[in-house]
């Protein structure tokens, strides 16, 4: 049994997103976090202080642990964003605003 089988899902054609440049397939309607989980990926940022890996924790937009850079925009919650074809997710380092440093 898998989740799709359980609910008798017949999704439309998959979309392709890029995770750090690598193509990952996403079912239509899945969030970016769900697509990455389905691909076995559970971490997509490193923390500001300790540089530790993090991914989705609460799954409902409350904890902000699932932040990553999406199409160049840092600090996006992957558990809320629906995967669209061609979305580029980049592992985010720390605050994600390195380019603003002066």
């Amino acid at each position: 049994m898998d989740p799709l089988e359980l609910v008798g899902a017949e999704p439309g054609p998959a979309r392709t997103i890029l995770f750090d440049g690598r193509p990952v397939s996403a079912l239509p309607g899945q969030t970016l976090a769900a697509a990455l989980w389905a691909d076995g990926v559970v971490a997509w940022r490193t923390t500001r202080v300790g540089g530790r890996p993090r991914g989705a924790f609460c799954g409902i937009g409350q904890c902000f642990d699932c932040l990553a850079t999406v199409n160049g925009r840092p600090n996006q919650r992957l558990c809320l964003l629906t995967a669209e074809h061609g979305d580029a997710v980049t592992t985010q380092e720390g605050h994600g605003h390195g380019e603003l440093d002066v």
Partner: protein
Amino acid sequence: MLKRTSYDVVVVGAGVVGAACAYYAARAGLRVAVVDRGPVAGGTTGAGEGNLLVSDKEPGPELDLALLSTTLWRELAEEFGDRVEYEPKGGLVVASAPAGLDALNGFAAKQRTVGVEAVPVAADSLRELEPHLAEGLPGGVLYPQDAQVQPALAAAHLLRASGAERYLGEAVTALRRGPDGAIRGVVTERRELAAPAVVNAAGTWGGAVAELAGVRLPVLPRRGFVLVTEPLPRLVRRKVYAADYVADVASGSADLQSSAVVEGTPAGPVLIGASRERVGFDRTLRPEVLHRLAAQAVALFPVLRTVAVQRAYRGFRPYLPDHLPAIGHDARVPGLYHACGHEGAGIGLAPATGLLIARQLAGEAVEFELAPFRPERFDGTAEGSGSGAE
């Protein structure tokens, strides 16, 4: 049953001013207790940005106090180091229009006569100092003496270093006085602390503590909101604000004043202060206030448009009608000292206040003109008359 303990002085208030009073009193060799109805930094201190400013003050008693504090903060920073996040980063005041620049330069010239370092900055040099600053601003003034500290940490570390006995979470319910009217100690919800001297460092609630001694001190709250962004790299190096801020600070109007003071913090978030409203202790959030602060911050630093505000907080600055704090012995009640009413400058003015109070407590010479800060100066005025007498 009330426990009874003796001290040389009891400080009422565990904010940064109370902590500084305790610190310097202990250094003067006094046995000190600090009482607060809440925790350390539970009032205005915990809601402050940690401004140590000379830039916003015109020549006069408050600036004298600020200049003394600037020196003292440098000494304290050597003792406390990074633990209080002291940053001698300087302030940059920018004019938004050419007329404003003339006024700002005139203001700075007057400040220089009393020892403020104020360096004019030409339009084309502004962005060398602050690369993300908006283009097209006519110029500004750099104030190297302005600095910043994390206020709650500053209060907590000063208090710890004082070695004072802490009685936190205990409200003072009465002040004990002898037959001659002199202070004998304080009564809290849980105990009695005997002491020949009491320092009222209760900030916004300073008026209520004065009332316990039967004297009037018209301390009132002036509300402020601060916006806090998401953590960012250092994109604002100094304290940066528009010249209009000075007029806001000095304004007597009850209406909303706001002019954004923008600054980075060692922890990452950018702080955007500071609105000023006289609305009593009303805590209601006004989106209009947040809007004004945000719009002004974006006008100074357009790059902030791309970041998120993570939180907002509010606090109540304790002010007296003439915008000067009450510092020193109260001539009306032997043994009662006041150190409150610093409005938005309490973090900056705390060390000087603490030092001067400690000198008075220890009976040492005070080589500083305290007359403008006399606590009883409102007697007979509209604000001070009324229920002053017992």
